């Protein structure tokens, strides 16, 4: 891998966002006709690196050399024109256009001012033949299956004379047979001398299809190896091998008897969570780990009554319960802090106070009239207990920092005196100081005997806080680790157990 002519070289790419260095001096060299896998944990910087390459982000430092010429893309249009294409994780072609219109979108063949449909049809047949694809150029895109749409996207890239094709988790929504079909196409592309940057978490696929593997961690490039030099274990240990950077508060909780038992919980969507069993004890922090798309959020939103499930039994303190909508959960003192506080947490225009006491109206109303004096007492208590920094109770919550907004939401739920708290990504997007405060609150709640589910994509956080970690992959529970078994590699092993 030392010498060789590269089609693409990225040297010393650095990209900073307010408060984080997402990419730190990253170098990546890609050879033509090779499948180059790019691996790393969630947030390691893979997507950011690809966005820098594709012109979506502008790197703060570093050089990109394509076919021996230094390039600098201001937009993805420019990248496309220079021969770089990206097959996105979530494909979004226009459903009501035909295959051929999608293929030539943005560069329709013209005759004068009119679109030349005849030429378009001819060119489409030719392009599809090149990739041995057999579908009708005049079919509507919405009638195609996911894998067909994907091959259409690949055909689009090839017809664009792409030298480099980026595939971001291309198999995440494909069946086994469709994966084989995709691999056949990739084989063809390789023979045509096209370089493929292949991002995936699925170890088996990488071992099968990739010629070489680059591994990233915490915004840095760890190295590039020939796939033959690697095993699944060495990849995982290189992906996670780092020391703990954050510190966690002392925990004094002692897990007690089982409070909530979940059995055979299954979504109505076949690709979502299925047959999940677990238990939650009094005074316990249960960590839930998994990669993006493991359906952790969906599972717990299902338990909380936001998403529908077909099968599953919930037992609370030995009694079977039914949760159809969130209020059923709240009445049983089960609460959910959602993953995305902007989308489903805060009421941005309402005051900090109302965001906290809004759940208390049943308790503080007399004859249907809200007693605002009592409401404000509750809010003031919440503000004090969680040291929320806000000019006043009437300040709209949208003007607070992310950490303070999160504390407002914690206060809202904790003032309802819950027994079971499901916290989905409780520290996402907040600064280190506020994170520590939230860890302290969680540890204290567990010590008071509350049961806590903590869903997190930051493995360190789970290893530092949880008493037990349940790992999910692709909608299934793939295992459970007790404190003695904790380790990043053990978690990653379970998180990548695809069927």
């Amino acid at each position, binding site marked *: 891998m030392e010498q060789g002519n590269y089609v693409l070289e990225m040297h010393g790419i650095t990209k900073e966002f307010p408060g984080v260095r997402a990419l730190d001096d990253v170098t990546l060299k890609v050879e033509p006709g090779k499948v180059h896998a790019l691996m790393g944990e969630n947030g390691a910087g893979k997507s950011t690196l690809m966005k820098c390459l594709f012109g979506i982000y502008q790197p703060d430092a570093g050089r990109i050399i394509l076919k021996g010429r230094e390039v600098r893309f201001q937009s993805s249009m420019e990248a496309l024109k220079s021969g770089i294409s990206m097959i996105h994780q979530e494909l979004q072609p226009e459903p009501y256009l035909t295959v051929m219109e999608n293929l030539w979108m943005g560069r329709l063949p013209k005759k004068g001012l009119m679109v030349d449909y005849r030429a378009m049809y001819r060119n489409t047949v030719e392009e599809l033949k090149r990739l041995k694809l057999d579908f009708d150029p005049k079919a509507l895109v919405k009638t195609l299956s996911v894998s067909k749409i994907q091959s259409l996207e690949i055909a689009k890239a090839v017809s664009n004379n792409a030298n480099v094709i980026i595939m971001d988790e291309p198999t995440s929504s494909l069946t086994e047979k469709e994966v084989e079909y995709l691999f056949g196409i990739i084989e063809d592309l390789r023979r045509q001398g096209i370089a493929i940057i292949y991002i995936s978490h699925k170890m088996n696929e990488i071992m099968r299809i990739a010629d070489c593997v680059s591994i990233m961690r915490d915004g840095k490039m760890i190295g590039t190896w020939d796939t033959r030099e690697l095993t699944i274990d060495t990849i995982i240990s290189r992906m996670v091998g780092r020391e703990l950077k954050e510190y966690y508060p002392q925990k004094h909780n002692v897990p007690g008897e089982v409070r909530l038992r979940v059995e055979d919980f299954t979504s109505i969507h076949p690709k979502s969570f299925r047959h999940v069993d677990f238990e939650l004890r009094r005074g316990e922090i249960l960590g839930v780990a998994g990669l993006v798309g493991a359906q952790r959020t969906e599972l717990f939103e299902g338990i909380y009554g936001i998403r529908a499930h077909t099968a599953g039994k919930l037992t609370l303190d030995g009694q079977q319960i039914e949760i159809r909508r969130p209020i059923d959960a709240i009445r049983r003192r089960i609460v959910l802090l959602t993953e995305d506080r902007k989308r*489903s947490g*805060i*009421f*941005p225009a309402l005051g900090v106070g*109302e965001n906290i006491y809004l*759940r208390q109206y049943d308790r503080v*109303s007399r004859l249907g009239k809200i007693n605002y004096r009592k409401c404000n007492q509750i809010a003031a208590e919440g503000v004090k207990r969680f040291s929320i920094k806000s000019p006043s109770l009437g300040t709209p919550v949208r003007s607070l920092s992310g950490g303070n907004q999160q504390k407002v939401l914690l206060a809202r739920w904790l003032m309802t005196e819950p027994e079971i708290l499901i916290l989905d990504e409780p520290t996402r997007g907040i600064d280190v100081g506020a994170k520590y405060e939230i860890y302290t609150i969680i540890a204290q709640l567990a010590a008071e005997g509350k049961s806590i589910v903590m869903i997190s994509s930051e493995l360190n956080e789970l290893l530092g806080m949880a008493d037990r970690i349940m790992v999910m992959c692709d909608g299934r529970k793939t295992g459970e680790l007790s404190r003695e078994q904790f380790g990043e590699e053990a978690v990653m092993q379970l998180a990548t157990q695809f069927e």
Partner: protein
Amino acid sequence: MNNENTARRGKRGVLDFLMNNVIMISLFVMIVVIAILQPRFMSTRVLRDILIQNSSRMIIACGMSMVLISGGMDLAAGRIVGLAAVMTGSLGQLAEASRRFFPNLPQLPPIVPLLAAIVVCFVFGMLNGVAIAKFSIPPFIVTLGTGMIIWGTNLLYYDLEPNHSQPIGNIQPDIKFMGSGYLFGAVPVIILIAAAVVLVTWFIMKYTPFGRAIYSIGGNRDAAEVCGINVQRTLIWTYAIAAITFAIGGFLECARTNGATAAYGENYEFDAIAACVVGGVSNSGGVGTIPGMVLGVLMFGIINYGLTFLGVQPYWQKIVKGVIILTAVGFDVRKNIRKK
């Protein structure tokens, strides 16, 4: 450094105050200008006239502001007003009137037409709410459709034998009293009714869990769901209660004018939406107050009356009103952009 900050904040504070109170300030300026040009404008008689003219609009705007705060829209409002007016007229005529809608009907007590109008409109409001909340059809489309259905229903009813789409008149005095009567010889009854409806709406929106649920749904529907608020039920009730205010508005329109036709209420929804939006009720939901809405209605009332008083052509009045709507909403949007 500190002083500089305070100074800057002081300057910003004044600007903020001006920005936040554009409506109030321009209302005040307008009154002053009209009063200087035409000193007779400043009399209790003029004020009373403006209030009387805008009472039913005020009541309709109460319902509309609830719907807007929930993040919705009710384009059927005007047609509901029209249906209520025709129902009131047909059921509230004098027994000895020459041309009666129901020739053999005895004279009914005034409460009967009022209740009948309220019940029918309430049912239509419920239908709006169910279509919007349960079937997730956009409020704009739902109420556009039901508005047409209600109008058609009203026209069919209005065309019944022997009325044949003739204007209904000869309303009984007890009903007329509510629209154009005076209490103690000086206080117009219609103003008192409007004030009562405004007070009740204000109480609902500010002091009841139901009212606060409307704000939270308009502000962030997903979060409201997570909070255990019954979003569907709340929305259905919002549209149903709004329809009750439209029914009261229609009843009073008939009472005030001593009659009704099926054209009553036409385009009232746009007046109501305009007044609400100018009064600071956000058309994207979650924001706005009842006192603000009241100011918005008064502002339009004063412009209407004041411009006529000054002898400005009605065509120009429309242009002035359009400019006011755009400016008010423009300032509001700017304010919110800055906060992001």
